[in-house]
Structures are given as structure tokens and as C-alpha cells.
């Protein structure tokens, strides 16, 4: 074996490390007041302290007009007066605090979702105002008789109610009208059709009654119906708004910068502008922005995110590297072989988008109920109208009024609240256990699964290598001191394992593909692979090993990726619940087999690419299996978004967390089982709520058909049924698993 080439990349790396953040002036915009604006995504914000640290950087400066960090979206918006070049200084200041900053691309903004949420809230607020005031007047009308009040006063009360209720219905009813119109245009109906009909007819008929000095006006019922339904709609929207925005988030990870070499000098170029044939310098600790070919330098590449392999891959000139993988040990130059939108990462994006489209076909239980409910309600309303008009001998106006009360009182209030309330409570209970449910119907889908696909690295295991066995303290000390000079996972693991003081090892070089070499007390010490500094006579173990050669004295360190606590127990519980579990990993066969045997899983797939994983999932789904995917890496992301429902640990990369429906925190694996149990419980309560709503309608509909429903009875029935459903949902808080 030839003497390894000692690169001087370390020097180059440190020179680049002091480089200033530039390029942000291009993203700054001037606003209407003549101030500059910049929005960036800040990574690593987890608590109030982070918000304070970052904002206080700016709040004490005079030229800053506004600095606000949105905790939910991780987006910092800065408005300042003065020079546009200041933007780079601001970003540098945040980076100096240790937070990562990414350019925020306005094109992939989620402003529309925010506008929608505000619109729903506004409608809810207006409906609430209208309901309160109309109810105030209605209670007055109900609690006295015509004899004491007089018809003139009653008409006056009705007129004021009309003045409040009619504009409110037209304003706040828009979410229902739009959705109903959209469905009708496409030639089918949804739950919003009877709701819209009830709102408009109740408002119109009540106005008609008021003009004709009628005894009953149903303004209060209409506004109340609208208010309750909007609550359900808003809760549902909040639960669902974070869901499945993964594709946009993926694109925004491509909006960072890359260091491109042009005519011997270095420039920062937006990743999406990289072209084939450009030369890009990627320093240690950076991710490869695109797929490329190494043309200069040697390094180790951590591909665990893309392929799931625990051990880094060694690359040298001529090797392929993929976008999204992490360069660990030394700076390398690559030639771009595929532009950003053709890279492996972009392939994964496309797979995810394809997966997302498949997902849209899922029909929620509430929608299924609505499909049954709508024709029945319309049928009863028409029967009531025609029956009373043609057979019952009433004029058309009172007949229509009875039909309207049928529409109102079969009120989907209880139906509209049945699902969102339980889901919000279930999410609340799960959050206390460190489980975050991101999409509203995730629990519903989770309750229906029969198969689980598990990733190994980082999901079933902790995802980082730990030193196993015991070693002499002085040996460990030397190894750890040497290990601090490298970002290689094994070096880090050995550094973490040693708690004492470090020695001063001089002249340290990292030889890519071999290990670390340094001088200590006049002797050469080496930490590296078996071939380079190990003892070939000692039998190799099946685990990952690292050798220390301290002036001829050789020691072998052994590493393992340990299982999460309670992984064995949880897998057993899930099996006992009748679920079929598969272990699907990108890691080597022997590593996967070992982990699989430890937790007792017989179905194991090793060495799977992201596409192969996706195909396994598709095959399962084609066999009518409902699949839960649990994974943490980029290689899992397409399956996470394509599976019927997906979970990711809190240690997963952002992309996987975004793609997953549910994220669980902590070292344990048991949240997977607990969440499954709560999902089953949630579905049970949802079904009970539907049953309650149906029982209620069995009582209410005959009353309405018989023409016995006055506005007072309608109000009591509607609020009563909603309260019963809400009360039943609250049982979720106390029920044990």
C-alpha cells in the first residue's frame, strides 16, 4: 500500500470557516415605507430562550424597525432602515450565536394557508358576535308572551335580529357557500349543501315572517348553527394545516448557497442556479448540494440520511456523491453532474409528490357520514314541504317554514363537532406524552393499519454509534484526545465515551480513508482502520471496530448502534395487537439481521434504496394492506409520505419530520404503541359521537316533521346535542389505555 496523500485541506477548511455570510442582500426587499425587509428561516429554535436571544440581537439597535421570530414557522422577519448590505451582518450575527440560517424563498411561502386561517377566524368571530346579540334579543322574545310584550315590540326585536343576522350569515357563511357551490358545480353534493340551504332558507323565511308580523323567526337558530359549525371547521383546519407540506419544504432546502469556483475565485451561488459542469467546493461539515463527481480531494461521506448506512463511505477522485449527503472529514471539489432539479434529492421530491397525490384519495369518516347524511336530510325536508302543502292543507309559506326547521334541527352541529373535538383532545393528550400529531386525520388512519414498516438506523436504534466494552483509562485518553480532531462518527463516539481531561496531541493529520495520525511524547499515535494501524493477527469481530496504535501498542475499540430503550418490548406489544411488522433498512445485511434478531423480527429487507423501499410499500398497498411507516432519514421520506400513515422520531431530519404525520420525542420506542392505542380509542369515541348524533336525530326529525319545533325548541335541541357530543369526547382525557 502506498503512502497516503496527506492533504492540506484542513488549512483550507479553516480559512473558509471565517468567511462572511454574503448573498443575502439579493434576498432583501424594499417595502412601501422605504425600509428594507428580509425573511430567513432560523434552524435550532426550540424554546423561549432562543426567541429572546435572537430577537434581542436586534431590538437594541436603533436602525432596526422590527424583528420578530415566528416560533411556529421558524421564520425571522427583519425590517430595518439604512443600508441593504446590513443584511449579511444580521445573518452573520445569528450564525455566530450558533443557529443555522437558511434563505427563505418567498415563492414557496405558506402565506395562503395563513390567509385562510385568518379568514376562518374572522368568520368565526363575526358569527360569535351575531349569535350573542341575536340570542340576547331572542331570549327576550321567548321569555314573555305576546300579551305582555305586544306585537309591535316583538316585530321590533325581530327586525333588529334580522339586521344583525342577515349580514352575518352572508359574511360568515361564505366558507360553506363556497364549498357547497364548488361541489354542486362538479355535480355532486357534500355536507355544506344542506348547511348552506338551511342558512339561506332560514334567513330568508325569517325575514319574510318578520315583514308579515309572524310569530316565529329563526334568526337565532341559523346563526347558532353557523357558529357551531365554524368552530368545528376551524379546529379541523388547524389540525390539518401542517399536514403534507413536505414537498414545498423539500424545495426550500434546495434554496441555500453553494461555493462555486469560477476562474480560480470562489463565489456563493444559489443551489437552484447550479448548472452541470460547474465546480463546487464542499468543505468538511457541509452537505453536498447536488449530485456530482469528485475531481479533487479525498473524504468520508456520511450517507446515513440517504442510504441508511451507519458507516461513512470513503470517496476519492472519480467517486460519485449525492445531494443531501454530508461531507465529514476534508474539503473536496466536485463537478456538478446533475443540476439541482435532476439530483437524487429531486428524485426523492418527485417520489414524495407522487406519494402525496395517492394520499389525497383517502376519504375521512366524517366525509363518509356526510355522503349518507346529505340525501337523507334533503329527502326529509322535501317530504315535509310537499306533505304539509299538498296533503296537510297548509299554505306554502308555513310548509316551507317547517321544511326549514327540518333542515336546521337535523343540524349537523353534532356531526360537525363529532370528529374535530375528539381529535383535538387526543392530540392534546399525546402532546403531554411527547407525541406531536401533525395532520388531523392521522389518528383515524392509524387506527386502521394492519402492517408496520420499520426503518432500522435512527428509528429502531438510536442512530449513533456507541463504544461497547471496557478499556484501560490511559488508552482511552489517548484515543479520545486524537478523536477530537475529527468529525468522523467513530471519532466522535470515542470522544463522547471519555469524560476525563484530554492530552495535547500535536501535528494531527486526518488521512482520508485511513484515520488520524499525531505526535504524542515523541511517539507517533494513530487512530484508524484495521488495515492501516490494526493488528491483522487478531480475529476481526462482526461489529464496527477502530484501532489505536500508540507507538506500537495496539488496541481495538468496538462500536455498536444500540437499540432504543424498550424497543424489544414495544415490538412485542405491537405484534400481540395483531400487526404485521417488517424491518426495511438501507444498511448492510448482517447489521440488519442482528438488530432484527434482537427485537424478534423475521421479515427483514437490507440494502434497500429509497425507490426500493417505496416499491415494497406500494406492493403492500396493492395487496390492500394499510401501512404505517416509521422512519427518520431522507431515504425514508418518500415512504413516509406515501404510507397510509407515518411516524418519525424527533431526532429525524427535518424532511422526514415534515413528511411524517406524527412525530414522537424521547429515547424510547414505546410512543409508537401508545399512539396506536390512543388512535383506536379516538376512533371508538368518534363512532360513539356519530351514534349519539343519529339517536338525537331520531327524536328531533319526527318533531320537526310534525311542525312542533319553535325557535326555542330548535335552540335547545341544537346546543343540547352539541354539548352531549363534546361531553362524550372529553371522556378521552380520563380513559385509560
Amino acid at each position, binding site marked *: 500500500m502506498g503512502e497516503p496523500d496527506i492533504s492540506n485541506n484542513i488549512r483550507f477548511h479553516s480559512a473558509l470557516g471565517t468567511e462572511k455570510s454574503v448573498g443575502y442582500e439579493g434576498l432583501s426587499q424594499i417595502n412601501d415605507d422605504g425600509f428594507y425587509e428580509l425573511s430567513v428561516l432560523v434552524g435550532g429554535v426550540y*424554546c*423561549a430562550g432562543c426567541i429572546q436571544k435572537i430577537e434581542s440581537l436586534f*431590538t437594541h439597535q436603533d436602525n432596526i424597525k422590527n424583528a420578530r421570530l*415566528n*416560533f*411556529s414557522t421558524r421564520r425571522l422577519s427583519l425590517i430595518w432602515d439604512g443600508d441593504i448590505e446590513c443584511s449579511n451582518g444580521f445573518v452573520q450575527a445569528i450564525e455566530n450565536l450558533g443557529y443555522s440560517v437558511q434563505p427563505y424563498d418567498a415563492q414557496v411561502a405558506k402565506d395562503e394557508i395563513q390567509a385562510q386561517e385568518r379568514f376562518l377566524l374572522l368568520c368565526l368571530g363575526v358569527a360569535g358576535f351575531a349569535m350573542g*346579540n341575536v340570542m340576547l334579543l331572542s331570549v327576550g322574545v321567548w321569555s314573555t308572551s305576546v300579551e305582555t310584550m305586544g306585537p309591535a315590540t316583538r316585530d321590533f326585536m325581530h327586525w333588529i335580529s334580522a339586521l344583525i343576522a342577515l349580514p352575518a350569515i352572508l359574511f360568515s357563511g361564505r366558507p360553506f357557500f363556497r364549498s357547497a357551490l364548488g361541489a354542486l358545480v362538479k355535480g355532486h353534493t357534500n355536507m355544506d349543501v344542506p348547511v348552506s340551504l338551511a342558512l339561506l332558507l332560514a334567513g330568508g323565511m325569517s325575514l319574510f315572517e318578520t315583514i308579515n308580523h309572524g310569530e316565529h323567526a329563526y334568526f337565532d337558530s341559523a346563526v347558532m348553527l353557523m357558529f357551531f359549525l365554524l368552530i368545528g371547521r376551524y379546529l379541523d383546519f388547524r389540525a390539518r394545516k401542517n399536514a403534507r407540506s413536505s414537498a414545498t419544504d423539500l424545495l426550500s432546502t434546495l434554496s441555500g448557497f453553494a461555493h462555486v469556483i469560477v476562474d480560480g475565485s470562489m463565489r456563493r451561488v444559489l443551489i437552484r442556479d447550479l448548472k452541470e459542469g460547474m465546480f463546487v467546493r464542499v468543505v468538511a461539515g457541509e452537505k453536498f448540494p447536488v449530485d456530482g463527481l469528485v475531481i479533487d480531494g479525498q473524504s468520508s461521506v456520511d450517507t446515513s440520511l440517504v442510504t441508511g448506512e451507519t458507516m461513512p463511505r470513503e470517496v476519492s477522485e472519480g467517486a460519485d456523491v449525492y445531494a443531501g449527503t454530508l461531507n465529514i472529514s476534508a474539503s473536496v471539489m466536485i463537478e456538478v453532474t446533475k443540476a439541482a432539479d435532476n439530483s437524487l434529492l429531486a428524485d426523492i421530491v418527485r417520489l414524495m409528490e407522487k406519494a402525496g397525490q395517492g394520499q389525497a384519495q383517502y376519504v375521512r369518516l366524517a366525509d363518509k357520514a356526510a355522503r349518507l347524511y346529505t340525501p337523507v336530510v334533503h329527502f326529509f325536508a322535501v317530504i315535509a314541504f310537499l306533505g304539509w302543502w299538498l296533503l296537510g292543507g297548509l299554505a306554502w309559506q308555513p310548509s316551507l317554514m317547517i321544511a326549514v326547521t327540518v333542515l336546521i334541527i337535523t343540524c349537523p352541529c353534532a356531526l360537525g363537532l363529532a370528529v374535530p373535538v375528539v381529535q383535538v383532545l387526543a392530540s392534546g393528550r399525546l402532546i403531554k406524552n411527547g407525541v406531536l400529531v401533525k395532520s388531523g386525520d392521522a389518528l383515524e388512519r392509524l387506527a386502521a393499519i394492519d402492517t408496520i414498516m420499520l426503518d432500522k438506523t435512527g428509528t429502531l436504534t438510536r442512530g449513533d454509534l456507541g463504544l461497547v466494552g471496557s478499556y484501560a483509562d490511559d488508552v482511552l485518553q489517548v484515543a479520545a484526545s486524537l478523536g477530537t480532531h475529527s468529525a468522523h462518527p467513530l471519532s466522535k463516539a470515542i470522544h463522547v465515551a471519555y469524560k476525563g481531561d484530554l492530552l495535547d496531541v500535536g501535528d494531527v493529520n486526518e488521512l482520508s480513508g485511513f484515520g488520524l495520525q499525531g505526535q504524542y511524547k515523541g511517539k507517533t499515535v494513530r487512530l484508524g482502520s484495521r488495515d492501516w494501524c490494526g493488528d491483522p493477527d487478531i480475529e476481526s469481530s462482526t461489529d464496527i471496530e477502530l484501532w489505536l496504535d500508540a507507538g506500537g501498542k495496539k488496541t481495538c475499540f468496538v462500536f455498536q448502534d444500540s437499540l432504543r430503550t424498550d424497543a424489544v418490548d414495544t415490538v412485542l406489544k405491537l405484534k400481540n395487537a395483531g400487526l404485521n411488522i417488517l424491518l426495511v433498512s438501507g444498511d448492510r445485511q448482517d447489521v440488519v439481521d442482528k438488530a432484527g434478531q434482537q427485537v424478534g423480527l423475521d421479515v427483514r429487507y437490507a440494502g434497500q434504496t429509497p425507490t426500493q423501499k417505496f416499491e415494497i410499500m406500494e406492493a403492500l398497498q396493492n395487496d390492500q394492506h394499510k401501512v404505517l411507516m416509521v422512519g427518520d432519514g431522507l431515504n425514508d421520506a418518500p415512504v413516509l409520505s406515501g404510507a397510509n400513515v407515518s411516524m418519525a422520531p424527533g431526532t429525524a431530519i427535518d424532511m422526514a419530520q415534515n413528511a411524517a404525520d406524527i412525530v414522537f420525542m424521547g429515547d424510547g420506542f414505546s410512543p409508537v404503541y401508545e399512539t396506536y392505542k390512543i388512535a383506536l380509542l379516538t376512533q371508538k369515541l368518534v363512532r360513539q359521537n356519530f351514534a349519539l348524533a343519529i339517536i338525537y336525530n331520531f327524536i328531533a326529525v319526527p318533531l320537526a316533521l310534525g311542525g312542533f319545533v319553535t325557535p326555542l325548541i330548535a335552540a335547545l335541541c341544537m346546543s343540547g346535542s352539541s354539548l352531549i357530543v363534546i361531553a362524550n369526547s372529553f371522556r378521552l382525557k380520563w380513559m385509560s389505555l
Partner: protein
Amino acid sequence: MSVLIFLIPVALFLGAIGLGAFIWSLKSGQYDDLDGSARRILIDEDERSDED
């Protein structure tokens, strides 16, 4: 009953003030970051600038 001439407008006016306040808070973005607001309560006041 003539007292209603005063009471009803008063009631409506108070309700309208509440609605106005709600719409203002909505438009000024106070509902955009509910998670952040929940955490900001932990930040010491005197460390912060007066504008917020």
C-alpha cells in the same frame, strides 16, 4: 319597554367594540404564532425592548 330604545343600542355597541377588538387583533397577526406566544410569556420583560 321604552328603556329598550337605549339598552339595545348599548348592548350592540358593546358587542361591536368586542368584535372590533377581535378583528384588529386578527389583522395585526396576533393569531399567527400561537405556539410562540405561549412561550414568550417565559421571557423576562426587562430584557425586551419597549416597542413590542
